[in-house]
Structures are given as structure tokens and as C-alpha cells.
């Protein structure tokens, strides 16, 4: 089946095969016999699925949703200061770093001299965005982060250009829904710990019922 890879290093010229040598069928194969073992595989899968002996691989989207990690690069969030104003200082780093050139910022003078600037307009063209997370990496103020939200649908192209108000919508800042953002190792570890604990709980419950069966939801 496989040749010695060191053959490549042998001195001299190794000729490439001059003609293809296709596989030959055995008698059993000619008689379609291996189909029976294939049938056994599909029947085994069917029985397992019918009796719920293994976890289903499909989910009932949109009622049921796949959980993504807290690194998921979804819809952006513009974070706010404690007083609810936008944290962004319009430094344009995100717009510069963006490989899709989808961020549009217009800066204005901030009344507070310590802050200096703020974005009068901050727009992201969601149809252009490639969700690479470069804006989050670039931001020196932690003013733009990403959420776990991946369903973005629009009725028109104009709608897909999301402005400051939508990016700052408070509902997106649900701690469970946060996505890609500057990393916090402790928090990451804590979340992983929680996920492991959940998995252990399910395993323990399965062991208790005896069959190892997960009831279909």
C-alpha cells in the first residue's frame, strides 16, 4: 500500500510509473457480497439513532442553537464608558487594520479635554466585513469587541451598514454572549472549568441511568 518514503532520498533517478495500474476486483466484490457489510453499518446507525443510543448530530435550528466559544467572532460591539457614552476615541486604528476596509469613522471634538476625540459616525458594513477580528486586535482602548451573535440578516444593502447606535445596543453586552476580545486567561480557564464540569455532570447522569443513553431532546 505504501512505499518507503526514504526512496525519495535514494541517489539516482527513480522513474515514475509509466502506466496506471487500477485495482482489480475480487470474486466476492464481483458478486456484490461486501454490500452486505455496508448494509450492516447503515442498519447499525439507524438502530442506534432510533433508540437514542448515541447523541444526535443534528440540531433543530433556530429553536436549538449551537454554543460557540467565547472567542467567536460575531457581530461587533462598541463598548461604553460608565456613563453610557461611547468609549471609542476615534483613533482610526481599527479602520486602518481592517483588511476589508469596512469601517467608516468620522471624528468629532469631545467636550472633555482628557478624551479629546470621539466618533460622530462609526459605521461597519456588515456585508463587507470578513469577521477577522483585526479591529479588536488593533483597538488600544478596548472600545470594539465582538459578540457571539452570528445571525445577521438584512432586507437591503443600506441596512447592512450598521451605525453607532446599533453597535452600542445594550442587549449585545450579555456576558454569556461575548465573543472575540482581548483575552483574559483567568476567565478563559474559569469558563473551561465550567464546561468540563457540565460535561462531567452529563456523563454522571448517563452512568446513573445505566444504558449510557442520552434521551433525545
Amino acid at each position: 500500500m505504501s512505499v518507503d518514503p526514504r526512496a525519495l532520498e535514494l541517489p539516482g533517478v527513480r522513474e515514475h510509473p509509466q502506466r496506471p495500474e487500477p485495482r482489480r476486483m475480487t470474486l466476492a466484490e464481483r458478486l456484490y457480497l461486501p454490500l452486505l457489510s455496508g448494509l450492516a453499518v447503515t442498519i447499525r446507525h439507524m438502530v442506534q439513532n432510533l433508540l437514542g443510543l448515541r447523541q444526535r448530530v443534528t440540531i433543530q435550528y433556530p429553536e436549538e442553537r449551537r454554543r460557540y466559544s467565547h472567542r467567536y467572532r460575531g457581530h461587533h460591539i462598541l463598548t461604553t464608558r460608565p456613563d453610557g457614552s461611547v468609549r471609542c476615541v476615534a483613533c482610526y486604528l481599527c479602520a486602518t487594520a481592517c483588511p476589508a476596509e469596512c469601517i467608516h469613522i468620522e471624528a468629532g471634538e469631545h467636550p472633555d479635554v482628557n478624551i479629546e476625540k470621539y466618533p460622530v459616525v462609526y459605521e461597519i458594513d456588515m456585508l463587507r466585513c470578513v469577521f477577522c477580528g483585526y479591529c479588536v486586535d488593533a483597538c488600544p482602548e478596548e472600545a470594539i469587541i465582538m459578540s457571539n451573535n452570528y445571525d445577521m440578516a438584512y432586507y437591503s444593502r443600506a441596512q447592512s451598514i450598521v451605525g453607532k447606535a446599533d453597535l452600542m445596543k445594550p442587549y449585545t453586552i450579555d456576558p454569556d454572549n461575548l465573543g472575540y476580545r482581548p483575552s483574559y486567561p483567568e476567565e478563559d480557564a474559569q469558563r473551561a472549568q465550567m464546561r468540563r464540569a457540565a460535561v462531567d455532570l452529563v456523563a454522571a447522569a448517563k452512568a446513573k441511568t445505566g444504558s449510557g443513553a442520552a434521551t433525545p431532546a
Partner: protein
Amino acid sequence: MPPELPELVARLPEGAVTESTGPDAPQDQPTWIVRREALLDVCRELQSNRATRYDLLLEMFGMDYPDRDERFEAVYHLYSIPSGERLRLKVPLAESDPVLPTVTTVWKGANWYEREAFDMFGLRFDGHPNLRRILTHEAFQGHPLRKDYDPARRWILTEDKMYMPKLEAPEKGDSMFERMTINIGPSHPAMHGTFRMIAMVDGEEIVASEVEIGYLHRCFEKMSETHTWQQVIPYTDRLNYCSSFINNVGYCRTVERMLGVEAPPKAVWARTILSEFSRVMDHCVANGSTLVDVGALTNFWYFFQPREEIYGLLESVCGARLTVSACRIGGLLADLPPDFVARCRHLLEFIPPLIDDIETLVDKNRIWLDRSVGIAAISGEDAVNWGWTGPCLRAAGVAFDSRKAHPYDLYDTVEWEVPVLRGGDVYDRYRLRMLEIRQSLAIIRQLVDRGMPEGPYVVDDPHVALPPKDACYNQMESMIYHFKLIMDGIQVPPGELYGFVEGANGELGFYCVSDGSGKPYRVRVRPPCFPLFSTFPTLMQGHTISDAIATLGGLNVIAGELER
């Protein structure tokens, strides 16, 4: 003067071939400057001379240096499978007369590459059988990769300029059928992307055919020239989007070599593991879609379960499933999640039973054997001549794998072998991918057993990688580096380099040229499926339309990479 081939060089006029030496010469592989008059002789000799035997034309493309006297350059990357040597030929060409002889008579695979160089740079090839545009529309004007071409130009592309091929078929023998020309694609469910195939059929048999590409042209190479080195990484995701992680690794490794930095052990370890997982995933898609095209739907579902789980792993590392952008120049985008090893172990348990099931279902299944054995068979010799690499080449009996021939990352520290089959047909391409999935899993298992290396995930060099966020928030110096790196980009020293990795469907090469300005002067991709697909009309000669569909899946042609 090149050390080999003294007789050939003696026959040529003075100065026809010179070796590029000195501080400005490329350091990555030997480079010869060849005058165009001598090109065909040199190529013939290099290809057939048993001492050199450069049997594989990896790629051929154009370069544009408007400041030079001889503005254009045709670059050939040659590879010798027996000796593992690489060689670059450069042919300088004046703007007034950018004509050079075709090398399609030496390497058949040069056909499409030369068409691309014609399309993108306006180089003309004497004696080329079919020199017309390949990636752009027939009504397109100008040559987009020339430096003076304005990317904002718009052309009205009308349908009356649309190309209709004149298929030249052999004489109609005693066939009782009427000949018919049919068109499949570009938007056709069996066409795995936007390809168009025009076939002349005699009854059911294809007597002549041609394929058209260019419906998805993404301008990857042109866009790379106007963005910083880091910004190219998300573009590479979209080359072979079935295994985007490998593209990331290929590009980042190339730039790292140009910079002279090395990714830390942890990043290299993770890159190797995730590359192999991506390869498994890519093979799952290729085999799954081949089988579904011939009517074996169940396997598609079994194949897509590992893929789904691997996407979950990638998502936990980088936050995206398909277009991962998970590498950074100098390492990874983020530290690995704490449960990385556990998830890898879970996958190593989860994938093999499904692969076993699929093998039981189809390996000896006569319905599949009848559809695949001996279909679109190619010999190893021909496959090399057409420029094939990757699983399709290994299925034709040539044991060439960049991971083995030129080990990078951790491939030389693990035990694995290169599977090789001799059939060269649809069946063996399927079978070889199954064997490779097992090899990939073996590599991953060894690396996971070794444990995650300690240390940083990205190189600690503020000229290459962004400083950590805390430092950026709290230290003036880091803040300055942060701004400099984003505003000006990584300053890659002037030079050129061809970096490569073994992609899921062949050697994926990146030829990067830097002029030291902070943006790539040129990023050229060696797309592994470009030569594969250029062979398609030849492969289909004498087969049926249904065979064509089965073959297309087995070649694993990905439009995003084919047309960049």
C-alpha cells in the same frame, strides 16, 4: 555559471544563462537568469537530463518591475522529484517586446500558467496552442497585475464577446450517434463551484472538451499589493477554504522566513496539529462530495460529522469556523484554550470509527468500484508532467510529499509515512485520501501525547507581533509599537522567497517579494488545484459525462484557490 549542464551551456551563446549571485540574489533557492532565446533549450535539457531531471514545473508566472530596463520577468519554479532540488529560472523581457517561447512542449502543465501570465501581464508565448485570457473576461482590457494598472478601472463586459470554444474532435468513425456539444456550468450543482465545461459527446462518450474558469476571480494577488503583510492573512483563508488553516500557515511561514523570525514551539506545535486536522477535514469534503456525486449519500453524512467537530475545535482556538485567520506572522492569534488537548483527544477517539464505517460501506462496494476504478486514470509520468502534486499525484504512484521531502514544522519529529497507490484513477484518489486521514491522525496523536509545549504563543518581538494588550494599555513603549505595527505594517526586508507547505490538495507555495515598504511588492500563490484542473479535458477524453462529475470531485478543485 551553473555547475551542472556544462555541455549545454557551452553550446549556448555567451551570457545566455547566468547564475544569480551576490547580496541581492534570492537566498532561498538557486536562481538562473536565462535569455529568452535560450529558454526552450535550457528547459528541455533540465527536464530530460538525467543528472538534473527537473521533471515538475511547479509554477510559472510574470513579474513587473517598471523601473528596470527590462520591465517584465517570467519566473519558472522547477522541482526535481528524484533529487528534491528546487530551481528558479528568470527570463527578463522588455516592455516593447514581451514575447518568449512556450514551454508547453516540455511540461504540459505550463499551458494554463502561460495563459495566466498572458492575461495578468501581457506576456506573449510563441507557439502556445491556446493563448487567450483565462481569469478575466474576454472583453477585459489591459493586464491587471501590471503595476500601472488602476484597480478601480471598470469595463463593460458584454455577452457577445463571450468565448465559445471550437472543439476539435477526431474524425467521426463508425459511431452511430449524432455528435452534440453540451455545456455544463458555470452554475451547476455538479460543478463544485463555478466552473464551466463544454463537452462534445458522441452518444455518451466525451470526444472533446474544454473547461472555462475565472468566474470567481477574487484579485487576491492584486489586493495583497495594496495592504500590509498582516492584512493578507484573512485573504489567504479564502484560497482553499476547505482547509483555510493550512493556507494561513503557508503564508505566515513564508513571511517569517523572510523576516528571519521563528514561531515559538507552542505555535509550531499547534500549527502542525491544526494543519493535520484541516487536512482530515479537506479530505472528508473531497471524498464525501465525490461519493455523493455518484449517489452514495450516507457517506457524506458520516464524513461531515468529523468536519463539524473539527470546526468546533478551530472555533475554540480562533473564533471562526471556515475562514479562520488563526495564524499571525510569528505565531498564533491567541493562546490555545485550556481544553485544547482534551478536545484533540476527543476528536482522535471520535473520527476513526466513522472512517471505518465509510470504508466498510464503499471500499469494496461494486457499485462504487464500477463508477471509479479505471476512470480518469493517469500515469505517474503524465501526472508529473502536468504539474500535479498532492494526493492526486501520490495516487498515481509518485511518492512526493513536501512534508516528507522538505520537512517543516514538526513533521520530521513524528513517525508517519507517505501512502502511495498506483491506480491514478478516481478510486485510488479516494482511497489515498482515506489512508492520508489515518496518517494525519497518527501525526496528531503523537504530538498530542507529547503534550503542549510551554511558553508564548506568538514571538516576543514588537516589530513583528502586537504587544500584549495589558502592555499596550499601560506602557508607553508598547503603545508606540502597537500603533507603528498597525499603521505601517511589518517591515519585511527587501528580498524574495518561495515558501511552501503541503496543502490538502498539493504543494501550496507562496512566492513573496518585498521592496521594504511595509506592503508586499508581490504575493504569488502556487495553487495546487490549478494544474489538476488544467488536465481535466485530457482526463475526460473517452469517458462519459457522469464520469466527469465523479472525476471533478476526486480532483478536489476549489474555485477560491484556482482563481485566487
